């Protein structure tokens, strides 16, 4: 009778141990296995690219995992919080300061200094700069992006314009003309209200930043930002753009092809999407153009965006991880990557190659990328701009005016940055 207790207990322990053992992470074996995380279509392309790497390095194996773009930021943070970071990852370059502040990723200068492949001078300066935090380089750009305008040439022509807009004022005039001729249900522009990149782009087209005092306080009430916000809000107040979230659009290429929108502000991945999903009949009718400037000169600035490759501090194979980054940065591999994804290469050398040089849609990006600016490099960036966008959307719906909106943005930002100020005051952040 007394024996049952231990017997039951050991039975259950066995069962539990079996479950755990069967589910735990598998032990790494002889060929070193590098964990490489990449997002969306880049993840799919990476799975093919690493095969060449594995052929060159029989002692290394690369396991690629894909993260969904929409949740990538949260997932990377979760991985950091949970101690399950990979060796190498693709990372939106605006998230690098956050990961650097958390000491989740390692500085790469020692590797770069000894590299003949990764040569900083060949990269677009704004993009390279976005990977530098407090004087240290944390990521190697993998591809670049900046937001600019996609437009329908035929709709502009029908409204009497033979060139894309160059200034904010010119853009507004064009939209007024297009809107006046539009069928019901059609709009001049599409700027989804839950995307912060458009407003950030407009604000970067002017001097100054929306943060101040070493990025410790919000600076949304500055005249520059208010000007950008006022411009942004006109899209909605004048009825040029629908007040719509991107969750409610069935398919941008199809909508764009049907002429529901004449302008769309987005990034380079849309080139491939448009080429693939728009019918041949409208393929001649669309084009890209640099972002119009506040006072003329288009393409003088914009977000220096894109994704970089980083190495995590937890990685036990940092040297091997760097080999992978170097491999992926080789011009030949970069070309293959561009062919697979349509993503734009971060190195000027690659832009001389015929398929990019001759791509009519890429030229506008090239122009703008030379002047693109890095966004504030702090851990709270993503949270601040999302909060900013939430408030901007309320203003677009008419709940707030520009002054109220910017005041609210500053208040929210100051609250978000409270811990950062505390960290700085206690000498825990540079």
């Amino acid at each position, binding site marked *: *009778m007394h*024996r*049952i207790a231990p*017997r*039951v207990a050991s039975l*259950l322990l066995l*069962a*539990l141990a079996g*479950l*755990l053992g*069967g*589910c*735990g*992470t598998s032990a790494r074996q002889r060929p070193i296995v590098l964990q490489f*995380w990449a997002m*969306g279509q880049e993840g*799919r392309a990476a799975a093919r690219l690493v095969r060449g790497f594995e052929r060159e390095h029989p002692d290394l194996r690369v396991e690629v*995992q*894909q*993260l*969904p*773009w*929409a*949740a990538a930021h949260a*997932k*990377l943070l*979760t*991985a950091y*919080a*949970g*101690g*399950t970071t*990979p060796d190498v990852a693709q990372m939106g370059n605006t998230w690098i300061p956050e990961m650097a502040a958390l000491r989740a990723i390692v500085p790469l200068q020692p590797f770069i200094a000894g590299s003949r492949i990764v040569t900083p001078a060949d990269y677009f300066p704004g993009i390279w700069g976005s990977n530098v935090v407090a004087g240290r380089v944390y990521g190697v750009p993998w591809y670049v992006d900046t937001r600019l305008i996609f437009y329908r040439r035929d709709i502009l022509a029908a409204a009497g314009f033979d060139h894309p807009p160059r200034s904010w004022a010119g853009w507004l005039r064009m939209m007024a003309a297009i809107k006046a001729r539009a069928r019901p249900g059609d709009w001049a522009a599409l700027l989804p209200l839950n995307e912060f990149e458009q407003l950030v782009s407009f604000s970067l087209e002017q001097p100054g930043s929306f943060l101040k005092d070493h990025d410790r306080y919000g600076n949304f009430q500055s005249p520059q930002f208010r000007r950008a916000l006022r411009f942004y809000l006109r899209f909605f107040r004048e009825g040029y753009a629908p007040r719509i979230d991107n*969750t409610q659009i*069935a*398919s*941008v*290429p*199809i909508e764009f092809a049907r002429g529901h929108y004449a302008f769309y502000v987005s990034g380079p*991945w849309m080139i491939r*999407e448009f080429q693939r*999903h728009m019918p041949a009949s409208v393929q001649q009718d669309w084009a890209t153009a640099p972002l119009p400037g506040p006072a003329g000169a288009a393409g003088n600035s914009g977000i220096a965006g894109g994704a970089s490759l980083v190495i995590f501090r937890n990685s036990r194979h940092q040297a091997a991880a760097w080999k992978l980054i170097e491999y992926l940065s080789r011009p030949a591999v970069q070309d293959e990557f561009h062919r697979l994804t349509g993503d734009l290469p971060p190195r000027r050398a690659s832009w001389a190659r015929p398929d990019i040089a001759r791509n009519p849609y890429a030229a506008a990006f090239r122009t703008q990328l030379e002047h693109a600016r890095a966004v504030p490099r702090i851990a709270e960036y993503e949270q601040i701009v999302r909060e900013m966008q939430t408030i901007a959307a309320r203003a677009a719906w008419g709940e707030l005016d520009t002054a109220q909106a910017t005041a609210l943005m500053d208040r929210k930002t100051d609250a978000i940055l409270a811990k950062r100020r505390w960290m700085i005051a206690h000498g825990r952040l540079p």
Partner: protein
Amino acid sequence: MNRARAAAWTVNGLLAVLALVTLFPLLWMLSVSLMPQGSASTFPPPLLPAHPTLANYRTLFVAADLGRYLLNSLIVSGGITLGALVCNLLAGYAFAKLRFAGRDRVFGLLLAALVIPSQVAMMPLFLLVRELHIVDSYAGVILPALASIFGIYLVRQYARAIPDEMLEAARIDGAGELRIFLRVVLPLLKPIILTLTILTFLTAWNDFMWPLIVLTGNHHFTLPIALASLAREHNPDVEMLMAGSVVTVVPVLLLFLLLQRYYIQGLLLGSVKR
């Protein structure tokens, strides 16, 4: 007599309309999943595929790794179900039939804890799971779900009907408690075992929030997580999403149809006033 016939027509007509409204989204899902890419986003919306194709399923399984997610869902739900059966049956039976010090107090405590919603525990649970190094693993999803207060309650309600005389007789024959449980009690609990199995499996299969939090890379994604991330990608493909939905919905739907009696019995037992 005419009035009675009119009444019968009304009742059955209403039921038919209600059933149509209820089933239509699922039928539409099936139909769109067989349409070629891009054909569902037209106006007027097509109801049936002009040229049915399995291309969406092929794309999903070949390019989008759906097979892996299906397998993950099976592993996670199967693991949870097995473990939960062991834990809940043992505990439910003990609370119903074994007398031991503190029994009622412990059970009362568990029932009281039933009012606490699980999300209160989620933030510390993540930190705990991190200490156990099981973030982004099957174990991270399975372990916290291995026992449920509701499951224990269900088994206890059912096991109370087992006559004490049967257990006493077995004890007099010299059987140990584990032996009694395995040989005498388990056969009697067969209906509730089926109920618990299907309830647990369905809950595990459909669980969303915790797997969403604890699974980071796509290697361990379950079907709902994979489907949600597909749906939130840039410009998702309606036809392919519907095919993904079919794969997510159909297995459990079949299981339910197979075991519906036991499933519904579980719901009823669970809602009985205490």
